């Protein structure tokens, strides 16, 4: 194998990997930058890949859509993909997302910093998911210094849950939140958005169960 083709092979594989892992179409320019090849060469490689998939009758295609390259299912397989998607066995809410959502539901309006303080981990990723899904939205700004964004649940959230209003949420009862939770809520607005490492253990904070890579548009 010549040096040229060895480079090409690595570039080709890297392109496949990056496009596969990406949650958005990837621009040729970005791919070119990362594999350190000219954009035109990257475009050629992508074309080759696409042809190869077609020739070997793969169930997926490398599509060039607005904004870049992405993998998608082959149109031939639409009936299968539809049934698969409708079956919906794979749509599930991660425990982390559910907890964050629960905190917002019961403690709104609430800042991201407060959520992180209560959960003891950075809620960044889960919150993004919840925002994208439309369960949660911005409801205002904290009047205090820092003017942190405050979040609350949406109408869609109530609809999905089949509740007429927030008052219909099952009451937490005589549950007394932990002192640290109370403190986090009171401190409230002074809490900067940067997540305090509440969790003593060696967690570096990222929101584990949810941090399943790349951007969290988990639908």
């Amino acid at each position, binding site marked *: 194998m010549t040096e040229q083709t060895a480079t090409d092979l690595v570039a080709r594989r890297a392109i496949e990997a990056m496009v596969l892992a990406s949650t958005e179409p990837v621009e040729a320019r970005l791919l070119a930058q990362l594999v350190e090849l000219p954009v035109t060469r990257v475009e050629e490689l992508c074309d080759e890949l696409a042809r190869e998939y077609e020739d070997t009758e793969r169930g997926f295609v490398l599509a060039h859509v607005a904004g870049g390259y992405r*993998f998608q299912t082959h149109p031939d397989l639409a009936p299968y993909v539809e049934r698969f998607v409708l079956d919906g066995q794979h*749509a599930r809410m991660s425990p982390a997302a559910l907890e964050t959502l629960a905190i917002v539901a019961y403690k709104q309006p609430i800042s991201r910093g407060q959520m992180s303080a209560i959960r003891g981990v950075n809620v960044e990723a889960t919150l993004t998911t919840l925002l994208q899904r439309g369960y949660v939205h911005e409801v205002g700004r904290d009047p205090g210094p820092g003017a942190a964004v405050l979040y609350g649940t949406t109408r869609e959230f109530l609809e*999905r*849950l089949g509740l007429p209003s927030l008052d219909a949420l099952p009451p937490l009862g005589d*549950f007394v*939140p932990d002192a640290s939770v109370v403190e986090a809520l009171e401190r409230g607005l002074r809490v900067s958005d940067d997540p305090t490492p509440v969790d003593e253990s060696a967690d570096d904070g990222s929101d584990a169960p949810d941090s399943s*890579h790349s951007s969290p548009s988990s*639908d």
Partner: protein
Amino acid sequence: MSYAVRTPVFEGPFDLLLHLILKQEVELWEVSLHEIVDVYLSELERMDQLDLDVATEFLLIAATLVELKARRLLPGLDEVELDEELLRFEERDLLLARLLECKTFKDAAQALAAHIRRADRSVPRTVGPEEPYRWMVPDPLERVKPDALRAAALRAMAAPPVVVVDTDHVAPVRASVREAVESVLRLLPASEPMSFRALVSGAPHRLEVIVRFLAVLELYKQGVVDLLQFTNFGELTVRRLHDGETALDAASLADWDDPAIPVDADDDRDDRDDREAIDLGIDDDLPEVPEVVLEPAPQGQPA
């Protein structure tokens, strides 16, 4: 043998003990229990901030170690009852088994870490189906019941673990050196010597034997009794030096039984935090044993 064990923060007593024992692996022939006990205790002493729960387990192990060590000082081990003998091995073996188990899982954890490192080199595809299908995906929240949300809220806001020292596994066997001193003085005839064996003949529990031995040493230290032993591990004889009661040094006694009171105020160990003085000092001739609470049968035997 010197140990530069200044290094890591030990996660627990097994951690420390494994470290101490396996560190000596290179000098296998010199391994001896008493050194391990000593280093263990001095390690313990250096830990100036012990969590209560951690401390409990550390102390339990320390107590077991001290007990093992103390056994060597007891005379006539070969003549103790078979039951006792078995019990002794049982306890030692139990500690050994727990150490082995702990080591096993430490190594298993390494293997898990290796798997994780390998898995981390791959990123899964999570984007899901493209547009025509995306809208068909059932909303995950539709499967969530309001009660599940409530449960999640409670979970998230639940108090962080309340530290409760689990004492279930601590047998309520208590022995105080102060009381043992009284027993010894009561038992010991004014004029004639008495063998240590006889002194402990009425002690129902091994722990009491040990504590009574410590009491004898204390009395010896205070010049109340004299000790005679003609051969190593031979019969130990205790003889009262003076008739009548000698004024006992109460502070010294308290030293044994009352670890909460820092009795070493005049000590030159200046970096100690007296507030938390859990004094297992081995600066003195013998390990001082705080109110000894031994654990004959710890829970969690290896399966």
